[in-house]
């Protein structure tokens, strides 16, 4: 557990120094909500608002996930982490925790902005967003590690991630909290069990 915390802390420290991912996510989500306002005919935006929110959140998460393993990729750090005798699942959990932190930070801005731009927010939506963050981080961290191993990299992650994220959008738009919790549980266990194969040959 202390490994996980140390690795997550490292990611937050890196972001604090580089200040790249979080500002990009914040600007992206605001720009996306603004575009959605113009993309819809007058009067329909309130009806479609929840769909807009979830589209914006999933694509913003995708932006963050694309950056999640940049430090590891550029400096060959997967090798360093794989060499260490710690549990490889701790590497997944540490990264997933830092991704949840980034998502939460982006949503602290995005949700009030959404409430102001369109219509108010219910407690149910906030709970759904929190549950969705866990699922997005669990799956996205694993697929993110896969994507950086490939030549296509930034191109590959959306292709891997979006089909698997469709159930999250369904659960979010429909407000099915139990379904989101089920999704989180299933995919977190699967990602936890398989992550070591993604980053290590041996």
């Amino acid at each position, binding site marked *: 557990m202390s490994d996980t915390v140390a690795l997550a802390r490292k990611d937050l420290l890196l972001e604090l120094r580089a200040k790249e991912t979080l500002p990009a996510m914040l600007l992206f989500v605001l720009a996306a909500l603004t575009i959605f306002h113009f993309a819809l005919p007058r009067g329909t935006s309130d009806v479609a608002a929840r769909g807009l929110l979830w589209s914006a959140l999933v694509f913003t998460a995708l932006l963050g996930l694309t950056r999640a393993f940049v*430090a590891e990729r550029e400096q060959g750090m997967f090798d360093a982490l794989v060499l260490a005798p710690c549990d490889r699942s701790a590497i997944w959990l540490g990264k997933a925790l830092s991704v949840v932190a980034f998502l939460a930070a982006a949503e602290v801005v995005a949700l009030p902005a959404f409430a102001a731009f369109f219509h108010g927010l219910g407690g149910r939506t906030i709970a759904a967003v929190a549950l969705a963050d866990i699922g997005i981080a669990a799956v996205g961290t694993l697929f993110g590690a896969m994507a950086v191993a490939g030549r296509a990299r930034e191109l590959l992650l959306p292709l891997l991630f979006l089909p698997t994220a469709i159930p999250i959008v369904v659960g979010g738009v429909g407000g099915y909290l139990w379904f989101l919790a089920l999704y989180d549980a299933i995919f977190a266990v699967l990602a936890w069990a398989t992550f070591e194969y993604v980053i290590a040959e041996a």
Partner: protein
Amino acid sequence: MIRGRGLAKRYGDRRVFAGIDVELADGDTLLVTGANGSGKTSLLRILARLALPSAGSLELPARERIGYLGHEPLVYRELTALENLVLFARLYRVERERVGMLLERFGLWEARNERTGTFSRGMQQRLGLCRVLLHEPSLLVLDEPTNALDAHGLELLDAVVEEPRALVVATHDPARFARRATQRLAFT
């Protein structure tokens, strides 16, 4: 320490090497030479437990007893030297005191609070050596360790090499390690 029979490495249809035997006892030094792209790095990655051989049988020490230095120093550029080593000390379950000791030994103590991205290539290589020695490995696997080291850095490296432990070195400068070498492996 290492016992490998008939080791081979293949990536898809591309064969890197085949039929390599390696036998290394405690205190032995294996010198691996050959041109770029001949398979030195592939073999070293297998011996460091970073890669699996495509064929052959292999016995290796446990991960926590191996130290591997590749072409990259394997440190985070946005973290300071101290932060990097403290992180790895945690992952390797090593006392923090050792971090300070190693930074002193490799002449990086003054620069410990600077981001490693600002380091010269030689300083990064010395920091890489610190990381590798952090957990006092009994098998050291070094891939072109003389890279970017200046005269002082090379002296520090020589001292590391002299320490009693099993050693695998891939190098273009075999003369430097010739005195310690007990086995040689030349890739063509």
